[in-house]
């Protein structure tokens, strides 16, 4: 039986981060992962991440994955792929299936970072080919370059459902609707808004009552649900679809902890069965740590920090760094993690209806139920102001931990202030130079550059555009409102794509000036 100083289970964002941090302290680390490639789910994430610079904000998930793999290889981390850890026993012994053989190893410390699995809901027809997990859709289109189908209904309006809906459209699929049994949208408003403005309807308080088809999905019926989530007869709506995507949350894959006898809890706020851990991930068994989604569902950014924390703690447990060195490293990591857990979507706020922002502004109820801020609500947010000439309009209306916009502006026009969850506002006396960096840097695609009166009866609006085919200068089409409905005719007057924009094209459209604050998307 081979012995290692640290065995990490899972080569996703959290496991790799843990291995890197421990290896940097001098620990001999081995990582086992059941997949053919390392990186976990990071390589499927093609959207720009939220957060601050420290959290890799405005960097796309797969780029963060590439950085992580480089860092792991530089730190000398050994990753064994196609290796499924099938058991964790007392005294930190593990069994690993590689090929047709079972290997037996012992760790002086163990970090489990096995992540989470997708939840499922059942309805008549749910086993038909064509009913897939949202993660499956991401895997097919973003890793393997194939569309899951042509017309998709998304069940679930959490961040996964919203982000994957957008990605489906980027892959050239049509999203016919986003449905959710909950009465309010679960994910970030900005993610919902960028889906809604393309014309995708949201059906809240709706669930799937039937998937149609004999050998493959050919359609879906959704129905409104009452307050106890029972479908209401007579409210059925039918859609022609060939794919039904399910995004109804994740559950920690915590079986290994249970097997080894760690103290467990059933905690709905963390997504189910999780090991009981201290603030740095150590379980009731000394030297056995949990990091990432397996200890409570959050997101990749926090998983990476939790991984680093567990890596540092394992190194100190093994004697590779002093208590003081550990405390110093943990202090910085804790600060980063803490800032990610702030705001309306903080784990502690899960399930709560928040009616006012930290600034005391009424939250848009239209955003929570329809996916877009209505025209009469938008003016009350601090990012939405009026000025002569081109100026940023920031339709950021919820307190989320994200601030790349304030660093993006070379002229200092945008400020978030000290608290990362504050809503952005335009600073006094600043002069916008129309460079577009703020538009491209907003992970929520919520910033527009608007010239409300170009002098000729028209207004110009610069908006982020991440679809193909890319419209060309001179193209005439429709200006769509925040709700995705046509509001006016629009002409493309500029298309900008710089390397610094990282594949977010900036489309400038001209619209009659009365639509300056209404048109937010372009359809050819």
């Amino acid at each position, binding site marked *: 039986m081979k012995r290692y100083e640290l065995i990490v289970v899972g080569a996703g964002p959290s496991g790799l981060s843990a291995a890197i941090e421990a290896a940097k302290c001098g620990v001999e680390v081995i990582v086992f992962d*059941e*997949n*053919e490639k390392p990186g976990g789910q990071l390589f499927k994430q*093609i959207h720009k991440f939220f957060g601050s610079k420290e959290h890799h904000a405005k960097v*796309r998930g797969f780029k963060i994955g590439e950085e992580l793999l480089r860092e792991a290889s530089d730190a000398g981390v050994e990753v064994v792929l196609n290796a499924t850890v099938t058991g964790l026993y007392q005294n930190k012994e593990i069994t690993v299936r590689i090929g047709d053989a079972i290997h037996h190893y012992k760790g002086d410390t163990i970090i489990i970072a096995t992540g989470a*699995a*997708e939840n499922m809901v059942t309805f008549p027809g749910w*086993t*038909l*080919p*064509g*009913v*897939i*997990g949202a*993660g*499956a859709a991401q*895997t*097919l*289109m*973003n890793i*393997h*370059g*194939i*569309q899951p*189908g*042509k017309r998709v209904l998304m069940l679930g309006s959490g961040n996964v459902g919203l982000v994957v809906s957008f990605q489906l459209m*980027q*892959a*050239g699929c049509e999203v016919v609707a986003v449905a959710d049994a909950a009465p309010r949208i679960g994910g970030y408003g900005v993610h919902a808004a960028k889906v809604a403005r393309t014309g995708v309807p949201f059906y809240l308080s709706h669930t799937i009552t039937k998937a149609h088809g*004999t*050998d*493959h999905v050919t359609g879906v019926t959704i129905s409104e649900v009452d307050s106890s989530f029972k479908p209401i007869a007579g409210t059925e709506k039918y859609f022609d679809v060939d794919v039904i995507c399910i995004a109804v949350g994740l559950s920690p894959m915590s079986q290994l902890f249970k097997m080894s006898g760690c103290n467990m809890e059933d905690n709905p706020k963390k997504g189910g069965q999780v090991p009981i851990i201290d603030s740095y991930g150590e379980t009731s068994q000394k030297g056995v740590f949990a990091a990432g989604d397996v200890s409570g569902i959050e997101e990749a950014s926090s998983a990476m920090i939790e991984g680093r924390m567990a890596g540092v703690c394992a190194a100190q447990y093994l004697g590779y760094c002093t208590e003081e060195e550990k405390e110093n490293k943990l202090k910085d990591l804790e600060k980063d993690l803490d800032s990610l857990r702030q705001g309306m979507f903080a784990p502690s706020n899960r399930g709560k209806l928040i009616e006012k922002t930290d600034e005391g502004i009424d939250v848009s109820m239209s955003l929570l139920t329809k996916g877009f801020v209505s025209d009469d609500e938008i003016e009350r947010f601090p990012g939405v102001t009026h000025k002569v000439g081109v100026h940023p309009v920031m339709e950021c209306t919820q307190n989320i931990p994200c601030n790349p916009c304030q660093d993006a502006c070379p002229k200092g026009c945008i400020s978030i202030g000290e608290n990362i969850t504050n809503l952005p506002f335009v600073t006094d006396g600043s002069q916008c130079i129309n460079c577009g960096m703020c538009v491209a840097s907003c992970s929520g695609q919520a910033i527009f550059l608007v010239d409300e009166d170009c002098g000729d009866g028209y207004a110009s609006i610069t908006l982020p555009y*991440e*679809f*193909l085919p*890319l419209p060309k200068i001179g193209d005439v089409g429709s200006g769509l409102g925040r709700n995705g409905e046509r509001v006016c005719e629009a002409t493309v007057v500029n298309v900008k794509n710089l390397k610094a924009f990282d*594949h977010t*094209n900036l489309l400038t459209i001209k619209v009659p000036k009365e639509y300056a604050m209404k048109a937010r998307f372009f359809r050819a």
Partner: protein
Amino acid sequence: MSRIENHPILGEPKKGKTVSFTFDGKTMEGCEGEPIAVALKANGVSVHRYTQKNHSPRGIFCAIGRCTDCVMVVNGKPNIRTCVTPLESGMTIQTQDGVAPKEV
């Protein structure tokens, strides 16, 4: 055609060379190294197996090797997870019925 030719963020997908395989006796083409399930999807195949008791169809569900809904008979061996098994030239792939190849 369900393959993505060009993607606004990812560009052109990087794919292995084109290879032939058979599905229920029919010759098809796919890209070497991609999951069998992806090659089948590109050829319009969505039913991978029929369940033993009720003979109800199953296909891709999780696409990451967890749910085992997409298993098929590959090179004569049943219960192969096609979403995580790379396609090789000359593979024989059969719809699974229960745990045996489906008669065609």
